[in-house]
């Protein structure tokens, strides 16, 4: 063991070469443990993606998005690979679109109230609490709510009913992310705006919202991506439809319900369509997440 001559008093005589001590062994074991746990946590995600992709990719083709579901065919039937679920793609966009039309304006306006006009008041705290409760309500309950509110009244399953259920589901996420986005706008921008003689609405519209809008959009995209894959609230509100449907007041097919319906049938071609629909859903969520990240990074 050598020690440099010019070392300061405290470290005098200490070696610069690596030594194996109980401290370094503990450190290495713990590092190994942490890395193993991190990899283990990734396994379900990778396995899920692998399974969905390998099972779903065989049926991915443009006709999936343009054709209607086929009747059940045996595996040796010439039309086994025919058909698609274009109606369910349209239906998913329709229900999520209706849900967005309802939840986005309500959500953003509510969060403006919470962060800019009622911050730290009793009412705001109560609303925040209820929002958190709402986000914990099981999504099937949203479906029951929309069923009772709209399906029973209109005497028909419909995209509107599903849209209402999904809107209630999206609302807490949008309120929470938007409130956070607005509250994270630095206070000195508010002061600058007010100091220049802006009224509170001018301050919100011209300074606070523009500064917060990337984060708000990110939250909305994630909420939509989450909602698009929800099955429970659409199961008995939109129900299903084997045909093209453009009327929001009639039963509508959605990808999530299609996966549910077709996966539990004994027909091989329907099962394959269910896998393909699952892959489409996962891809939509993935694209939405990437889009959200891209927006965050761009600002």
């Amino acid at each position, binding site marked *: 063991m050598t020690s440099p001559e010019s070392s300061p008093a405290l470290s005098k005589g200490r070696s610069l070469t690596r030594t194996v001590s109980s401290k370094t062994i503990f450190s290495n074991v713990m590092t190994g443990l942490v890395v193993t746990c991190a990899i283990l946590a990734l396994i379900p995600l990778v396995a899920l993606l692998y399974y969905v992709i390998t099972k779903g990719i065989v049926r991915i083709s443009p006709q999936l998005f343009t054709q209607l579901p086929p009747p059940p065919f045996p595996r040796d039937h010439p039309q086994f690979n025919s058909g698609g679920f274009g109606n369910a793609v349209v239906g998913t966009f329709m229900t999520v679109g209706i849900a967005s039309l309802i939840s986005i304006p309500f959500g953003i306006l509510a969060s403006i109230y919470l962060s800019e006009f009622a911050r730290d008041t009793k009412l705001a705290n109560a609303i925040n609490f209820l929002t958190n409760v709402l986000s914990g309500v099981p999504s099937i309950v949203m479906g029951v709510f929309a069923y009772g509110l709209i399906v029973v009244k209109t005497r028909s399953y419909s995209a509107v009913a599903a849209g209402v259920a999904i809107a209630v589901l999206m609302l807490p996420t949008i309120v929470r992310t938007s409130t956070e986005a607005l509250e994270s706008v630095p206070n000195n921008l508010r002061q*600058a*705006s*007010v*100091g*220049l003689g802006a009224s509170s609405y001018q301050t919100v519209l*011209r300074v606070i919202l523009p*500064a917060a809008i990337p984060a708000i959009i990110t939250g909305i995209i994630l909420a939509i991506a989450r909602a698009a894959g929800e099955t429970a609230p659409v199961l008995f509100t939109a129900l299903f439809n084997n045909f093209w449907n453009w009327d929001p007041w009639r039963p509508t097919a959605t990808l999530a319900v299609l996966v549910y319906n077709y996966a539990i049938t004994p027909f091989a071609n329907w099962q394959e369509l269910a896998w393909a629909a699952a892959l489409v859903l996962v891809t939509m969520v993935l694209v939405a997440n990437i889009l959200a990240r891209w927006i965050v990074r761009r600002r």
Partner: protein
Amino acid sequence: MTTNLQTSTKTNTDVVFRTENVNIYYGDFKAVRDVNIEVPRHAITAFIGPSGCGKSTVLRCFNRLNDLIKSFHLDGKILYHGQDLYASDIDAVEVRRQIGMVFQQPNPFPKTIYDNIAFGPRLLGYKGDMDELVENSLRGAAMWDDVKDKLKALGTDLSGGQQQRLCIARAIAVQPEVLLMDEPCAALDPISTLKIEDLMQELKEKYTLVIVTHNMQQASRASDFTAFFNVQANEKGQRTGYIEEHDRTEVIFQSPKQKATQEYVSGRFG
């Protein structure tokens, strides 16, 4: 009913602000007491004093920026050309349009330089030549030559000193009568500080300036009048600020009447 302050400014007096027995409270806590000062027109008045003496608090009362704080209230009168700024019929938004503010931390909007300047005039529904107004405002803040080729660049991408000048340009774009500056150089390096001080000398030709500063050299170099704020703790440990002495700057720094002022300006406390 809102009173139009614009008409009252026609009857300009040489005293822009006069405060009468102003006490400022946050809830039950009395932050500043017995403020009685006059702020003369086209001059620079500096507020100096130790931390927590309420000089920023008083400054923010002059354009009702403290209204944003819920527990804030005051009694006494703050007269702006004889009109009480806290009278019930005064529109605080109108007040802030005539009495501009520059903050300690440069706070340009995350918009282009042009849009930063145009923000205030657009609020007022300015119908004239915006390009010209932007140019004049930037010239007024002595930064036109630096930024004339990058008006579309983000104001937040400028250096700290330039950001602060942008904030000054933004404040004078609405052509206020008064500019309040809350430690405008506290976040800046010495060279940027000197540039802002030079700029203040130019600005006082057109505007009335009130600045809060921690920097005594700055007060002695740049201001015409100085108010020295001091702070006094009561038996409960609550610290209430008050004005110890208010006079021409050279009097405050060379022959102050109060012993505390003498000690503060000679650097013995604070």
